[in-house]
């Protein structure tokens, strides 16, 4: 059985509004994420889920609101700062580095921690080599964890979709994030792949205590694995609570369950 300690609020999203041109993608969204929990954001297509994630890790800059991460209040994030302070993410549409092997893709997740300079790299001097080998070993643990040993040196483009998703997860995991944002990690997968992915998500949460924020529109999966759920619809928050609370919320049922499922 899973026995975990849910901690204090680690990420607090306050009153975020985002618009593109005239289109309002998010309107005054607020929610918090506690340390070590699995937090889901659900909603029908176009509800603003991905936009929300993009605001959290600085890909988009909301016009209003602020983001508090580990006590640090920011008007908006920038991607690098987000990565540096421990926010990792995966992508809905695979955003792997197509020209690189599985190993190299995951190695890029360690780039933040690799500091040796160009000259040392070019000459493959002691520190550069030592750093490379050290990070390789770390990445091997990620590969082992995700059970993709057999594909280590395969170019990612040649892998089936489900495995590519796993590599994407591995790349984010390699950065040892405190909070991991998962953008529809199970989209486009078959049942078995979904189960595998669920297991990995829970294992990550268990083994490393990583806080997880995930977007899904597969309700079943979300309800099974998350501690608390935020429901978005047309850029507005319409529900927030435990899976059971959300499931029984009349407004959620009306806006989400009633319409598309």
């Amino acid at each position: 059985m899973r026995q975990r300690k849910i901690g204090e609020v680690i990420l607090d999203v306050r009153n975020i509004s985002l618009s593109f041109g005239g289109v309002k993608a998010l309107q005054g969204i607020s929610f918090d994420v506690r340390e070590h929990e699995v937090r889901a954001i659900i909603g029908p297509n176009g509800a603003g889920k991905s936009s929300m994630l993009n605001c959290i890790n600085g890909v988009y800059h909301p016009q209003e609101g602020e983001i508090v991460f580990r006590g640090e209040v920011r008007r908006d994030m920038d991607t690098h700062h987000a990565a540096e302070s421990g926010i990792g993410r995966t992508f809905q549409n695979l955003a792997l580095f197509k020209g690189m092997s599985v190993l190299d893709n995951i190695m890029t997740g360690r780039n933040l921690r690799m500091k040796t300079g160009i000259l040392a790299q070019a000459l493959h001097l002691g520190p550069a080599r030592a750093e490379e080998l050290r990070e390789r070993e770390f990445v091997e643990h990620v590969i082992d964890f995700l059970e993709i040993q057999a594909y280590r040196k395969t170019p990612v483009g040649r892998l089936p979709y489900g495995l590519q998703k796993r590599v994407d997860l591995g790349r984010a995991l390699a950065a040892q994030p405190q909070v991991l944002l998962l953008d529809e990690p199970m989209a486009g997968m078959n049942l078995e792949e979904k189960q595998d992915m669920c297991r990995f998500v829970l294992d990550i949460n268990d083994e490393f205590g990583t806080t997880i924020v995930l977007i899904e529109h597969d309700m079943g999966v979300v309800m099974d694995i998350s501690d608390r759920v935020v429901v978005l619809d047309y850029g507005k928050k319409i529900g927030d609570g435990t899976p059971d609370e959300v499931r029984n919320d009349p407004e959620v049922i009306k806006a989400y369950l009633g319409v598309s499922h």
Partner: protein
Amino acid sequence: MAAKKNGPVIALGAVLAAGLAAPLVTGSPLGFYLEVLIGGLMAGVLYSLVALGFVLIFKASGVFNFAQGAMVLFAALALARLAEWLPAWIGIPAGFPALTLAFVLAAGIMVGLAWVIERIVLRPLVAQDPVALLMATLGVTFFLDGFGQTIWGSDIYKIDLGISKDPTMILESMFQGGILVSKEDLIAAVIAAGLVILLALFFQKTATGRALRAVADDHQAAQSIGIPLNRIWVIVWAVAGFVALVAGMVWGAKLGVQFSLAQLALKALPVVILGGFTSIPGAIIGGLIIGVGEKMAEVFLGPPLVKMWDLAGGGIENWFAYVLALLFLMVRPEGLFGEKHIDRV
């Protein structure tokens, strides 16, 4: 995306305007100044003609056709040599009749050539990275340069439009010494204007033209309402081929048909940057700005620079257009009239 700041654009514009006005303030004779200005405009018209070809193709297919310059050279060579050979072949009188027939034949050749390029080179590369497409057109450039010179010859040829190259003095009454204007240049400007009007009509009035515009606006949407993209692309390439012929004719008549024509066409690149890749008016105005800017810089900025730094001659026009385009890119990448793009994750 945060709204783009207009400050730098305005600043750049102000600097250019100041540069334009500076010679007058520093006491250049107005007549001379106007002469330079008109010379610049004339060169600009030629740039615009080449740039038009770029814009057409880019608008419809997203291909940055580096080979437009090579097509201009190829067209000019074809026109010049056909006009020279035809009298010997079929006994058509040299001069205007031969030239007319040569123009018709060259137009056919250019349309065919454009069609072949589209089919053989661009079609297999559909949906590729724009940089790959650019490189493919670089390949086309080299091929056409070699091919054109192989079949048409590699000397310097003339296109004689039968217009006197003698400059005419105009507005003598207004300025001391008047302004020297070449009649040829005027004709060129008229031809260019005519071509632009023709294209505008084509785009506004014909069904094909409207389809073309639809494609330019949104490929997928156009396809979904049943516009055959492949056919549109062929047409666009054909039109671009024709535009190249006109540009080649005008330019060849002015400067003679030679290999350097293809290189000069490189100048059209900064023009489209300035005007925006997708805007026909942009191509025209961009061409004029570059033409005028270049001439002004060469004539009025060059000598002081040479003196100041003891340079071995001027030649600012070699890079002026590019550096201007580069500055422009930094402050307004979409150009004067281009459309903005927002990258979504």
